[in-house]
């Protein structure tokens, strides 16, 4: 435990390390970008300057906001579907060798199919609506999550399992009092990957079939040579990815502080 007085100072320097430094780097890169475009007279359809991206995007801010919400919706629904399906799937995978042998090849198969190629077929199958986009998002995002959860469920030390068994824990008790809590750090590593991949999946879905969303905006903007707007959409997508990733990090720190500090997640 650090002395009480040192805590605020430490928090400040941490804030500097984690927020101010990367912000400064990004602002610096933006300035170099802006300067280069003017200095070398780069045409706007090749590489628009940040200022142009800003003014062109702000000009249609309302429209972009609508597209952003549409993409966010697909990302979140796809992400939640991934969680809801991955959890029981991982439990099933780790419950017995036979189940694992039955399911695992199918999971690997879903991963070997190129999602971009699958998307148009899904549109034919499921109709030109929300559903194929969500399915593509799910297919892109769920696999690392299943693997992470299954790894966590299997990583429980045998002594903990024996501890439960020595008090006659039922299968259910073993799962929800020992295995699942133990897997939480692993689950959150998986969630961080899955949320980032959900953004990728949603955009792939929108490329193929959408009348809304940032992916659709990029396709239609580039078709009409509105390159600054496409860049604007791209930047919003990255920001969305970062914000969602950080949201997962914060949720873990708030709900499971022991997990966030367990060393399983040294990245976040």
């Amino acid at each position: 435990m650090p002395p009480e007085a040192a805590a605020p100072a430490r928090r400040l320097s941490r804030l500097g390390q984690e927020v101010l430094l990367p912000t400064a780097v990004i602002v610096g890169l933006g300035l170099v970008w802006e300067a280069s475009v003017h200095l070398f007279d780069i045409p706007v359809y090749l590489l628009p300057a940040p200022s142009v991206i800003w003014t062109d995007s702000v000009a249609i801010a309302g429209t972009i906001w609508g597209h952003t919400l549409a993409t966010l919706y697909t990302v979140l629904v796809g992400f939640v579907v991934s969680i809801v399906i991955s959890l029981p799937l991982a439990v099933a995978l780790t419950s017995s060798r036979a189940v694992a042998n039955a399911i695992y090849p199918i999971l690997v198969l879903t991963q070997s199919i190129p999602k971009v190629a699958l998307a148009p077929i899904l549109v034919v199958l499921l109709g030109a609506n929300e559903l194929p986009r969500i399915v593509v998002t799910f297919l892109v995002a769920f696999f690392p999550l299943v693997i992470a959860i299954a790894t966590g469920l299997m990583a429980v030390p045998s002594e903990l399992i024996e501890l439960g068994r020595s008090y006659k824990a039922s299968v259910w008790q073993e799962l929800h009092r020992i295995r699942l809590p133990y897997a939480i750090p692993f689950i959150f590593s998986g969630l961080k990957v899955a949320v980032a991949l959900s953004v990728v999946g949603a955009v792939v879905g929108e490329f193929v079939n959408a009348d809304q969303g940032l992916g659709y905006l990029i396709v239609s903007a580039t078709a009409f040579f509105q390159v600054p707007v496409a860049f604007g959409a791209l930047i919003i997508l990255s920001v969305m990815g970062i914000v969602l990733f950080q949201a997962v990090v914060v949720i873990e720190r708030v709900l499971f502080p022991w997990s966030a500090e367990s060393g399983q997640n040294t990245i976040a």
Partner: protein
Amino acid sequence: MIEIGDVSKTFTTRDGSTVTALSGIDLEIPDNQFISLVGPSGCGKSTLLRLVAGLVPADAGRIAIDGTAVREPRREVGIVFQNATLLPWASIVENVLFPLKIMHAMRPDSRDRAHDLLRLVGLGGFEDREPRELSGGMQQRAAICRALIHDPAILLMDEPFGALDALTREEMSLELLRIWTEQPKTILFVTHAITEAVLLSDRVVVMSPRPGRIDEIIDVPLPRPRSFDMEGLHEFQDCAQRIRSLIFGRSGRRLAGAA
């Protein structure tokens, strides 16, 4: 009373070969005795503990507690492992209460009992801390409280102080003796430390490997209460020397034979 009669246990390893972990084990443990198991690694000490705990079945022979055959884990048994194996997400007091929650045996005064036990082992005030905030020795004390929470008549301890430094180890041994005196129970205690075994036990069971069997059971004639001062007594030295010669004399011969 724990009765172990002509018990054998063979494991089949992943590659299909078999290991005879225990063969022809005979041991009777009267109530409230303190018994230590010593012997080189691989001689089946942990396996014997697991058999008594009902965690693995014996291939042959009979294991009974108070006359009933052991077929599955039983309520009157508590276990302490080499590592504290506390649940990292639960506070110390929640860890201590874990067996009661699993067994649906929480009572209104259970929490008070957990606090009392923690105070008994010097962990008063740490009830709401998380395991990672405690040292290894403190974690192991909490694990002992967890094994005691349902007041088991039998305590099985598998090298419980193996991961601790020498000083903490001596301190914990004395603490265990104090708990055992205050709350008498049958203790089956696996250890690598010969002096620890002599200091704690009524009888020391010396085992040898491949196949795991009992070499000799040594009565420790020292009076109670025990203390580390007794290490100088010739009864203590005789016991320790006898155990040492049983373990090292044998492996010395084998080394000579292998050379």
